């Protein structure tokens, strides 16, 4: 079956998931993002590409960083931007998602950026919209968060340009994490030869090895000689399911401390998609330390989202 994200001639029409996208398109996004990094340092931090276009940010689920950086990205492309926190608007009055989309389309929206707690929400919208409209998945359930995967890959490439020679560890709640899934697809597609996941059995999906990763349950063993450590947020709201004894216990076994980070390569970098639970999955000394690239991730997130939007809107 044809990938619903691509046009008939193989160009990116929607960004729904990294899974199934060719390396060429991922590289095109990252290379284009490289050109957008400098725009933020100019007197006028804008380019005219999306002038006259309307971008609708539809957040059916809370988010601060993703929503804000998508909004800034669209504005720096000169688009008009509307951000709707739908949980607080029509949906609470009973309107369906597709009705919301149809109404915004009637207002001549050109692009939808969608976050939803249901996996597949962005796919459903992409199937529904008129051919000239583009959809970006800004996180759907446990499924995917493609721009996060891309911005993580971009950040890694900026610090470690030779992706074909890297050992990367992803640590934490892989089971519930759409971020982890998108990171794994992005890194393996871009040619990173060794991606490890480090987590307790209860926080790993079944058959996780099929994604092409090496599984470690012992963090010290898994961090040995890695170039990149990607921490995941421990989703506190999942703790209720009694999957974990306590956050203190978790920190002891899977929290990133300076002492554990010392097992990685001396020049290893540390990423975290935010929001961080300090003292649960990451120690403050690491989060604020010299190896942390957590704030550059946020900055690069804008350039990567500008790249995605400008490539989509042109196709």
């Amino acid at each position, binding site marked *: 079956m044809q990938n619903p994200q691509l046009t008939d001639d193989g160009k990116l029409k929607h960004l729904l998931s990294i899974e199934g996208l060719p390396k060429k398109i991922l590289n095109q996004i990252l290379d284009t993002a490289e*050109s957008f990094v400098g725009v933020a340092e100019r*007197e006028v931090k804008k380019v005219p590409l999306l002038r006259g276009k309307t971008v609708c940010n539809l957040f059916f689920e809370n988010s601060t960083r993703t929503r804000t950086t998508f909004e800034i990205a669209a504005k720096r492309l000169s688009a008009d931007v509307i951000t709707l926190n739908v949980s607080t608007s029509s949906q609470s009055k009973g309107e369906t998602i597709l009705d919301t989309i149809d109404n915004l389309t009637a207002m001549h929206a050109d692009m939808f950026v969608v976050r939803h707690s249901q996996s597949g929400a962005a796919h459903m919208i992409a199937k529904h919209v008129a051919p000239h409209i583009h959809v970006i998945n800004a996180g759907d359930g446990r499924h995917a968060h493609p721009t996060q995967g891309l911005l993580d890959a971009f950040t890694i490439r900026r610090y470690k340009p030779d992706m074909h020679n890297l050992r990367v560890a992803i640590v934490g709640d892989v089971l519930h994490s759409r971020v982890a899934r998108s990171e794994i697809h992005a890194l393996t597609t871009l040619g990173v030869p060794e991606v490890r996941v480090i987590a307790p059995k209860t926080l790993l999906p079944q058959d996780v090895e099929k994604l092409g990763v090496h599984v470690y349950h012992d963090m010290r063993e898994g961090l040995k000689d890695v170039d990149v450590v990607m921490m995941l947020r421990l989703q506190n709201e999942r703790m209720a399911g009694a999957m974990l004894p306590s956050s203190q216990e978790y920190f002891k076994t899977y929290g990133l401390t300076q002492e554990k980070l010392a097992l990685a390569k001396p020049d290893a970098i540390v990423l975290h998609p935010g929001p961080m639970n300090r003292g649960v999955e990451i120690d403050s000394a690491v989060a604020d330390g010299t190896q942390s690239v957590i704030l550059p991730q946020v900055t690069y997130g804008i350039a990567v989202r500008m790249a995605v939007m400008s490539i989509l809107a042109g*196709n």
Partner: protein
Amino acid sequence: MNLPDAETLFKGLIEQIKPIITADTAIVGIHSGGAWLAERLLAILGGDIENGILDVSFYRDDYNQRGLHNETKPSQIPFDVKDKHILLIDDVFYTGRTIRAAMNELFDYGRPASITLAVLVNRGGRELPIAPQISAFNTELEASKNLQLLRHPDGTFYFTLEENK
């Protein structure tokens, strides 16, 4: 049509450019041919002339028809554009649309004192009230022809003239 040798034209271009360089001049090459010309020009002129590179992909007026260019390169303007006399360099001047995009981009960095356009070849066919002040060679080429500056491994220049696909 026989095109003069690109290296000969380049020598002519240097002679025309030399007299207009002042302390406030900054040289900006348009990616890719203009950037190559600017690079060699700077090496020949010596000194410490401010310089940069523009890739106008984000300012092109055909984005809505053709989409974003596949291989954008970062623009690099590592100096303060304000009050500088910008010498903008490109290889081939044709419709003027690239130059319009380049000027729009430059003004997003600051307000220059002036912009002068120097090109290796003005091939005719402009569609906007924009023209180079300096060109090493003027000719009229049919719209079906694609004139391109290329670079040998040793850095010397040559032209290709092909039918558009």
